């Protein structure tokens, strides 16, 4: 099993380190040719606007979108969640639009609104969550499962083989979310 990690911009090395610790081989996705032979993909935190521009300019956008629509498992964190969302507020046209949720960008404000907390994510209990200029999910469509809410806001969802998180599992040493994603891939 080889997992792709989108490496156009952002905190991709942290995800790679997490997979290394789990003994899973990974490949940094920087160009179209890198997409061959991956069994799942991680979309890391970073700046969604930047990542989306680069997906287009490096001809990754359409192949990746089609692979996800055809069932490629995805773990998307923070900016990655924004890339997947079908609706983005404040008004912005969607990017990959494979996940039927509505996401609010910078929902907690600027950097001074960033925070850490602990919560349950699906069956994973007491998971340390780091929110950095994070979004949250304001609406979900039928078929989307809510995995976690913090203060009444949805911060983790699952839809078919797509997992979207508003926080950063790669910023902690807790590997349970990466393990759960690998089960979806397997």
């Amino acid at each position: 099993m080889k997992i792709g990690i989108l490496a156009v911009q952002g905190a991709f090395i942290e995800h790679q380190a997490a997979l290394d610790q789990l003994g899973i081989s990974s490949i940094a996705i920087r160009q179209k040719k890198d997409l061959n032979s991956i069994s799942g993909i991680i979309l890391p935190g970073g700046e969604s606007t930047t990542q989306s521009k680069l997906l287009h300019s490096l001809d990754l956008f359409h192949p990746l979108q089609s692979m996800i629509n055809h069932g490629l498992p995805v773990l998307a964190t923070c900016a990655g969640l924004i890339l997947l969302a079908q609706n983005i507020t404040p008004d912005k046209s969607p990017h990959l639009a494979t996940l039927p949720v509505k996401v609010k960008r910078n929902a907690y404000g600027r950097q001074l609104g960033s925070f850490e907390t602990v919560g349950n994510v699906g069956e994973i209990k007491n998971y340390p969550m780091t929110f950095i200029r994070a979004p949250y999910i304001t609406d979900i469509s039928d078929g989307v499962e809510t995995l976690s809410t913090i203060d009444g806001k949805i911060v983790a969802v699952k839809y078919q083989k797509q997992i979207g998180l508003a926080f950063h599992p790669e910023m902690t040493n807790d590997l349970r979310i990466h393990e759960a994603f690998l089960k979806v891939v397997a």
Partner: protein
Amino acid sequence: MSNTKEKQYELNKGLAQMLKGGVIMDVTTPEQAKIAEEAGACAVMALERIPADIRAAGGISRMSDPKMIKGIQEAVSIPVMAKCRIGHFVESEVLSPADDVYHIDKTNFKVPFVCGARDLGEALRRINEGASMIRTKGEPGTGDVVQAVRHMRKMNAEIRKITALSKDELYEEAKQLKVPYHLIAYVHENGKLPVVNFAAGGVATPADAALMMQLGAEGVFVGSGIFKSGNPKKRASAIVQAVTNYTDASLIASLSEDLGEAMVGINPSEIKIIMEERGQ
């Protein structure tokens, strides 16, 4: 929700991690900020005048009008940085230092600070003062990347040296570099700085940016290089792509085609004000 000092510092270091692999561009107006965001900048640095103009104008270079910075924050959704004079409440050697001895105690602030450094000692001293992110100083506003290359190479060489020391030699090294022992111990164990390290100073072309990434920078600041060039939009976008694919020589070659005129640039030997000397 309010965070403790320690927690806020961790979150600020985390914010810097999210900027990795990206390009941070100097802008002076909301319009330029939009062009930068459109081109794929992961953050912008808002300032009254870009370094090349600061250099040309001479005199005391002061901080920007906070209202102008707010205007740029309104215009874009990516993070906005601003510069402050060394000693004033991002300390920047581009501006004239207000305090020629003491830097700011950055741990007393909630916002993240980015500081310039020419070598490992400077970097660790700034981190000890609370910097969440380091960048090489280079020689700003020259369009010549050579100083940034020197600073990055020097820092990396010093990091490699520390990883090779035996544990009992670390105390002496801490003394030599004038930094606390625990920071030297971190570098010894991890082979890197405890915060993100970007390249800055004189980056003007996609090849300059790619070179800095190959030398181990985790991202790149571009100051005068974009809005002092013939086609800022195209150049900005090319530099962003070069940073992502910094090892792909043929892609960088094609990105470098037809970018219009680069900023003119000046040789460090021709300049009078050496900004890298400011704040050590």
